[in-house]
């Protein structure tokens, strides 16, 4: 293998065909190069049209350029010896040999293989998905291919761990207008993984119910109101958002819940007497439970139940709905 010093101005930084890494500028790499210099050569292809295309070493070359180095250690291969699919294969294996690719990096590689190199799906499923430690199934491949065109803000939110892969996978199949609207909303709101799924489902169903695009649901004044409420923490906003959408999607069930809570309040039971309704009010039955640590406390709680039994509000508990 011939390794040579190559001038930085010959390198085509803008050609990212073989790029795998999502983060091109990790700060620790620049520190390392500054301290000990370049240990491993990058791999470049000498294009027949002129210029050197980066195959392996995007991050090292960019760090060296920031450090003002005029040259880099490189192994240069003629394009005829390393056509594009082979170059990408080399880049891919070079990366997976020492780290696990993030979903967006895998998506980028699969997109390039399918749409830039023009490899057939069968070939990708057979040869490349196992290398990426992904299931060799067309659904998985299609999911990753759509991930590649994800809204930039959503990409960032996935990388920051604020959105799950399932969430962005779902969003990737939606129009870019909705992706943008959701990304903007999520800039100030935090949702747990399960709330992300539930909120997106509620938004989709409200949109279908109202014959409007999903982004219109996110642009409703009451949604904007939650998002812009400076008195709420991001997690509180997330819960409020879910509650709001749930109420809009299930108005009758929500109203029944409200009436139940109001009825309990009216009969004046202390907080340590738990009253629950049947699941989804399918029957009018209620379940009453309390815990007493002493005879005295038992008598007090039994007394409050006796008072509740005389309350005119008691009937309401059994008439929800």
């Amino acid at each position, binding site marked *: 293998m011939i390794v040579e010093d190559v001038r930085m101005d010959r390198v085509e930084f803008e050609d990212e065909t073989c790029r795998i890494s999502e983060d091109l500028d990790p700060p620790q790499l620049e520190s390392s190069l500054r301290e000990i210099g370049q240990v491993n050569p990058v791999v470049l292809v000498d294009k027949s049209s002129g210029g050197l295309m980066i195959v392996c070493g995007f991050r090292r070359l960019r760090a060296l350029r920031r450090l003002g180095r005029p040259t880099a250690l490189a192994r240069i291969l003629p394009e005829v010896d390393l056509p594009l699919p082979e170059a990408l294969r080399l880049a891919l294996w070079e990366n997976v040999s020492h780290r696990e690719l993030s979903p967006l990096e895998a998506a980028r590689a699969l997109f390039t293989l399918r749409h830039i190199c023009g490899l057939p799906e069968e070939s990708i499923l057979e040869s490349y998905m196992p290398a990426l430690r992904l299931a060799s199934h067309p659904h998985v491949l299609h999911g990753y291919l759509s991930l590649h065109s994800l809204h930039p803000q959503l990409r960032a939110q996935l990388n920051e761990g604020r959105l799950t892969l399932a969430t962005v996978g779902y969003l990737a199949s939606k129009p870019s207008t909705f992706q943008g609207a959701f990304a903007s909303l999520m800039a100030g709101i935090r949702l747990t993984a399960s709330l992300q799924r539930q909120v997106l489902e509620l938004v989709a169903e409200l949109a279908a119910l109202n014959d409007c695009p999903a982004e219109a649901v996110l642009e409703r004044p009451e949604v904007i109101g939650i998002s812009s409420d400076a008195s709420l923490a991001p997690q509180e906003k997330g819960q409020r958002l879910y509650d709001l959408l749930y109420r809009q999607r*299930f108005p*009758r069930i929500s109203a*029944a819940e409200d009436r139940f809570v109001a009825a309990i309040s009216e009969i004046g039971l202390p907080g340590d007497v738990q009253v629950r309704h049947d*699941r989804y*009010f*399918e029957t*009018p039955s209620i379940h009453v439970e309390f815990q007493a640590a002493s005879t005295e406390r038992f008598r007090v709680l039994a007394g409050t139940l006796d008072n509740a039994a005389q309350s005119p509000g008691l009937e309401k508990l059994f008439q*929800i*709905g």
Partner: protein
Amino acid sequence: MLPYRPSRILIQEQSGRDALTGEILSRLPGVPATTILDAGGLPPEILCGGDPRGRGKQTLVLARHRGNFMKECPGSGAEICCNYYVVNFAYNCHLECTYCILQTYLNSPAMVVFTNVEDLVREVEEKLSAEPDAFFRIGTGEMADSLALDDITCYSRILVPFFGRLPNGILELKTKSDRIANLEGLDHRGHTVVSWSLNPAAVIRSDELKTATLQERLSAARKCQEWGYRLGFHFDPLIRYEGWEGDYEKTVGELFAAVEPRSIAWISLGALRFTPHLRDLLKERFPKSKIPYGEFVPGHHGKLRYFRPIREEMYSKMLGWIRREAPGVFVYLCMESRVVWERSFGYAPRATSDLSDRMDALVCGACRGTLSGEIPEGRGRRLLT
């Protein structure tokens, strides 16, 4: 209604020896037919490509049914149930109702008709004669529409006269079609109830895609009434949407403008219920349907159904509209709890046997005129006397 014409017919080897197979083939000239070894071994291409559930119906499989034809209705697990039996002469339906449970229930997307009709008849006869004191209401509309394929299968021409001879059973043919031509002139002796599932015209247009229109169904019902059949109507599934009240009230009015209340054996009400899987499939196959977006909650057997107060509101309003037109017509709820009966109708059957006896009596009474002295000493008889 869009008539059914398959693009190909697959004949299970043994089925090729059945008379019904030859008759069905003669009614479908020009449709390529192939013999296969086993109805379970369908060509894999049926399951490939987009919408296999829709495309699969273009294949008609003629096969022999193995095992029992006659079973208890799956609703029999509900708190109050009408004690119904089902006989499955076919699997699947080409009418493409968006909410149809068969989409997720059946293993194969093909249309299957069982050709060993003699076995079916023998089994029903044996079961009914083994319990001469019991009365059986038996329907063929669980796994298929009872009449949608009748111009191809002519099953009704076998079953209706057969039930006419049975002393302790009646047949209910449940349909969303208008394929009644075969019923004319049959010796039914009051032992066949012809039933229609009804919904407002708007629901039929949006979610019962290849079925007969409301007017076609009601015209067919009127003809059956003229031929002396008792009629049944099933507002099942009831579907709630904006404007449902006006549409359903109008539909009830149209029903009673078309048929005489005294011809009606029963009317059932049942709010939409489906599995979560079916709901997802419905969204996928019929994205324009609004049905999945009701206020559903998980209920009996994990099925989704409307929030109870919504169901009660629908039932009580429907009952009011029906009672206004026909105060004496028997109306019952399908797969509902005692609480819902009481809150919707103001009363509830004491037990499943109450409802069952009442329904037996309704049809036993109808039989009595034509089968004098042959009414079984069963539950229906006891209630009538």
